[in-house]
C-alpha cells in the first residue's frame, strides 16, 4: 500500500463520497471511531471548560497567527538568521520533491541507512519515508500509533492518533505478527502492548545516528524549534542521534516566546485533552557536547505561499494540527480519515488539501464533504472559520467549471431563475404539476394529512434511496394567504 502514496494526496484517491461508502459499510471501523472520538471529545471539553479565559486565549492564538502570516517572509528571515547563528543549517524547499531531495541527500552524506523519526505531519505530507526507501534508507517511526500504522503498511487516518481506526485486539494481532521478539502469549492489555513497542523502539533509539522530525512551532526571535508529545519517544530522537533534520512548514513560525506561551496552553487542551503535554522539547541550533551536533532545518512551502495569497483560504494556515476539529466532526466520525484521500483528514483536511493540491481529483470533492454544521469552528483553538472557508472553496470549485454544463449547474440555474421572481415561484408551486409525475404512497404518519413519496426522479434519487418525502400540500402558503389568510 505504501508504494501508492504520493505527497499530500494519496495517488488515485477517489472522490470523497465514493471513498466514504467503503467506510460506511465497515461496522467495526465505525465502532472504533465512535469510541475513540467520543472519549477525546469528552476529555477536551472538560479541560477547556476549566479555563474561564478560553475565549480570550483563542482570540490571542488567532491574532498571533494572522499577524505572523501577514509578514511571514520577514519572520522567516529572522528565523533563518537565528538558526544559522546558533550553528544550524537552513534549507528552503519549494515543494515535496525538493524537500525529499534535500533530506535524502543529507542522510546519505552521513553514510547511514537507517533513521529514526519523530511523529511529523510535514514529512508525511511530502511522502518522505517512501523517498528515503527509494534511496535505500529505512525510516523507523517511533511514535507508537505511527509505528502501528507503519508495521501494518497502512495509512494514518487521524492527525494525532494515526491508528485511531484500529482497536486493541487488532494491534495485539499486528504486534504478535510483526514485532521480532514479541511474547507468544501477548495480550491486548495496553501496558503489555506498550512494553512490546518500548523494547522494540529502545533498540532503534540506541542504534540511530540520524533523526528526522517536524516541529509544532518555530520561535523566530531565537531560532528555537519546539516539539510537543506524550510518549517521550520524540525526546529520544531529538537528543540521542548525532544528526537531526527537521522538516517544517513555513507557517509554523511564531515571532516570540511570549507568543509560544499562548499556544502551549491552547494545543494540549485541544488535542489530547490534557492541561499540559508530558514532553515539550525545545532546541536552538546546536549546543556543543549536548545533543545532536549537526542540525538541519528544511523550511517547506509546498503550496503554502499560494494558500497565503487567498484572503479567506489562508486562515487554514493558522492551524496548529491539534485535531480537535476531527474529533467533533460528525462526517469524520462516520467515514474515518482514509476517505479524505490525504494525510490531512477531517475538516482541516477538507480546506487544506484542496489548497495544497488543487489539481487532484479528491480535492474537487473535499470542500463538499461537510454538512456545514459548524462544530469544527466551535472547537478550533485558532478560530478557523472552517464552514466559511469550505463555502469559499466551493465557490472556487463551481467558478472553475463555469462554462461546462452539468445537471447540477442546470438545476441551480433553474432554481435561481424560479426563485428570482415571486410569480415564477408561484407558478412552480402549482400542485398539479408537482405531483403529476410522482407516485404517491400510503398516508404518512410522520406528516399527518400528507402521503408518502418513496421515489424521486433524477438527482432526487440519492435522497429517496433512504428517505421518504411528504407529498406536496394542497396549496402553497402564498396561495392560502391570498385566498383567506390575509383577511382573517
Amino acid at each position, binding site marked *: 500500500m505504501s508504494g501508492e502514496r504520493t505527497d499530500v494526496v494519496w495517488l488515485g484517491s477517489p472522490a*470523497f*463520497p465514493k471513498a*466514504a*461508502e467503503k467506510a*460506511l459499510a465497515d461496522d467495526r471501523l465505525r465502532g472504533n471511531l465512535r469510541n475513540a472520538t467520543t472519549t477525546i471529545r469528552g476529555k477536551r471539553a472538560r479541560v477547556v471548560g476549566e479555563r474561564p479565559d478560553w475565549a480570550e486565549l483563542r482570540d490571542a492564538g488567532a491574532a498571533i497567527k494572522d499577524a505572523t502570516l501577514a509578514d511571514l517572509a520577514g519572520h522567516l528571515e529572522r528565523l533563518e538568521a537565528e538558526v544559522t547563528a546558533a550553528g544550524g543549517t537552513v534549507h528552503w524547499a519549494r515543494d515535496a520533491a525538493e524537500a525529499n531531495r534535500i533530506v535524502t541527500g543529507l542522510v546519505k552524506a552521513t553514510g547511514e541507512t537507517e533513521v529514526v523519526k519523530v511523529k511529523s505531519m510535514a514529512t508525511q505530507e511530502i511522502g518522505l519515508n517512501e523517498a528515503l526507501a527509494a534511496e535505500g534508507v529505512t525510516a523507523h517511526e517511533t511514535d507508537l500509533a505511527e509505528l502501528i500504522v507503519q508495521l501494518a503498511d497502512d495509512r494514518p487516518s487521524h492527525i494525532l492518533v494515526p491508528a485511531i481506526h484500529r482497536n486493541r485486539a487488532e494491534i495485539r494481532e499486528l504486534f504478535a505478527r510483526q514485532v521480532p521478539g514479541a511474547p507468544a502469549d501477548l495480550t491486548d492489555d495496553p501496558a503489555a502492548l506498550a512494553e512490546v513497542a518500548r523494547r522494540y523502539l529502545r533498540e532503534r533509539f540506541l542504534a540511530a545516528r540520524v533523526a528526522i522530525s517536524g516541529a509544532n512551532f518555530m520561535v523566530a526571535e531565537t531560532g528555537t524549534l519546539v516539539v510537543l508529545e506524550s510518549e517521550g519517544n520524540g525526546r529520544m530522537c531529538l537528543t540521542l542521534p548525532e544528526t537531526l533534520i527537521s522538516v517544517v512548514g513555513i507557517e509554523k513560525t511564531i515571532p516570540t516566546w511570549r507568543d509560544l506561551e499562548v499556544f502551549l496552553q491552547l494545543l494540549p487542551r485541544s488535542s489530547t485533552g490534557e492541561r499540559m503535554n508530558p514532553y515539550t522539547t525545545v532546541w536552538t541550533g546546536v549546543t556543543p557536547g549536548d545533543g545532536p551536533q549537526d542540525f538541519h532545518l528544511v523550511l517547506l512551502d509546498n503550496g503554502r505561499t499560494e494558500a497565503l495569497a487567498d484572503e479567506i483560504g489562508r486562515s487554514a494556515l493558522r492551524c496548529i494540527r491539534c485535531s480537535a476539529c476531527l474529533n467533533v466532526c*460528525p*462526517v469524520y466520525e*462516520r*467515514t474515518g480519515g482514509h476517505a479524505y484521500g490525504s494525510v490531512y483528514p477531517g475538516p482541516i483536511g477538507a480546506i487544506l488539501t484542496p489548497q495544497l493540491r488543487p489539481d487532484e481529483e479528491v480535492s474537487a470533492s473535499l*470542500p*463538499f464533504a*461537510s*454538512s*456545514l*454544521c*459548524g*462544530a469544527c*469552528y*466551535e472547537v478550533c483553538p485558532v478560530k478557523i472559520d472552517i464552514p466559511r472557508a469550505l*463555502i469559499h472553496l*466551493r*465557490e*472556487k470549485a*463551481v467558478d472553475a467549471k463555469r462554462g461546462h454544463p452539468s445537471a447540477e449547474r442546470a438545476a*441551480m*440555474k433553474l*432554481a*435561481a431563475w424560479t*426563485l*428570482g421572481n*415571486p410569480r415564477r*415561484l408561484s407558478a*412552480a*408551486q402549482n400542485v398539479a404539476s408537482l405531483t403529476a409525475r410522482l407516485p404517491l404512497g400510503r398516508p*404518512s*404518519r*410522520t*406528516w399527518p394529512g400528507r402521503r408518502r413519496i*418513496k421515489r424521486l426522479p433524477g*438527482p*432526487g434519487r*440519492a*435522497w429517496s*434511496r*433512504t*428517505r*421518504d*418525502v*411528504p407529498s*406536496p*400540500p394542497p*396549496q*402553497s*402558503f*402564498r396561495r*392560502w*394567504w391570498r385566498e383567506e*389568510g*390575509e383577511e*382573517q
Partner: protein
Amino acid sequence: MRIALFLTCVNDTMFPGTGKAVVKLLRRLGHTVVFPEEQTCCGQMHLNSGYRRECEPLVRSFAATFAGFDAVVVPSASCAGMIRELHPEVVPGLAAPPVHELTELLVDVLGVEDVGAYFPHTVTYHPTCHSLRMLGLGDRPTRLLRAVRGLELLELPGAEECCGFGGTFAMKNAGVSAAMGADKAANVRRTGAAVLAAADNSCLVHLGGGLSRDGAPVRVMHLAEILASTEEDPA
C-alpha cells in the same frame, strides 16, 4: 406590533402549515402579521453550494422586499442565520431589516415564554446546527416548549450533533448524510417521544424522511405548529 413574515421558499412551497401557525400564534398574541408577496428565497442553498453569483440577486431582492419593516420573523433558524450573518457579506453595504428567528422574536422582542399553547403530547426537541451554533438560540426553544400546557419534553441524547441534512450535502454525500440521520433518528426513537420538533423544517424533512421510511411512530413538527396549538384548535 406589525411583523413581517419571511416564511422561506421551502416552507412556502412544502410546509404552509408552519406559516399558518406563525400567523395564528402572533395574531393570538395581539400582533399584526403581514406577508410581503414579493418574497421568495434567502439564497442559502445557492451560497452554500458555491453559487454565490446566483445568490446575489436573491439577497438584493430580500433586502428590497423587507426594507422599512420594524421586525421580520423567520421560522427557520438556518435562513435567519443566512440573512443575518451572511447577507451583509454577499452584498456589502445593503441596508438590513431587523430579522428575528421565531423563538428570538417571542422571547427577546415580545418578551413572552408562555404563549398560551396546549399540546398534550410527548415531544423531543432537536436543536439544529444553525439554531445552536450560528444563531445561539440557547434554551429559548425549550423554554417556550416547557411552558406549553400538557406537553412533556423528553431530552434527546446527543442533541447537539448534526442530523446530517446540510442542504445539497444530503444528496452529494447521501451515504454519510443518511448514516448521520439514522443515528439521530435512533436517538429520537430512544426517547419514546411521539413528536420530534425543531426550528427548521429542512432538517425535519431529512429526519422525518428517514423515520417515515423506517415506519417509526414519530410525527415531525415545526416548533411554531406546537406553539400555535390550542385546546380549541389543536395541531
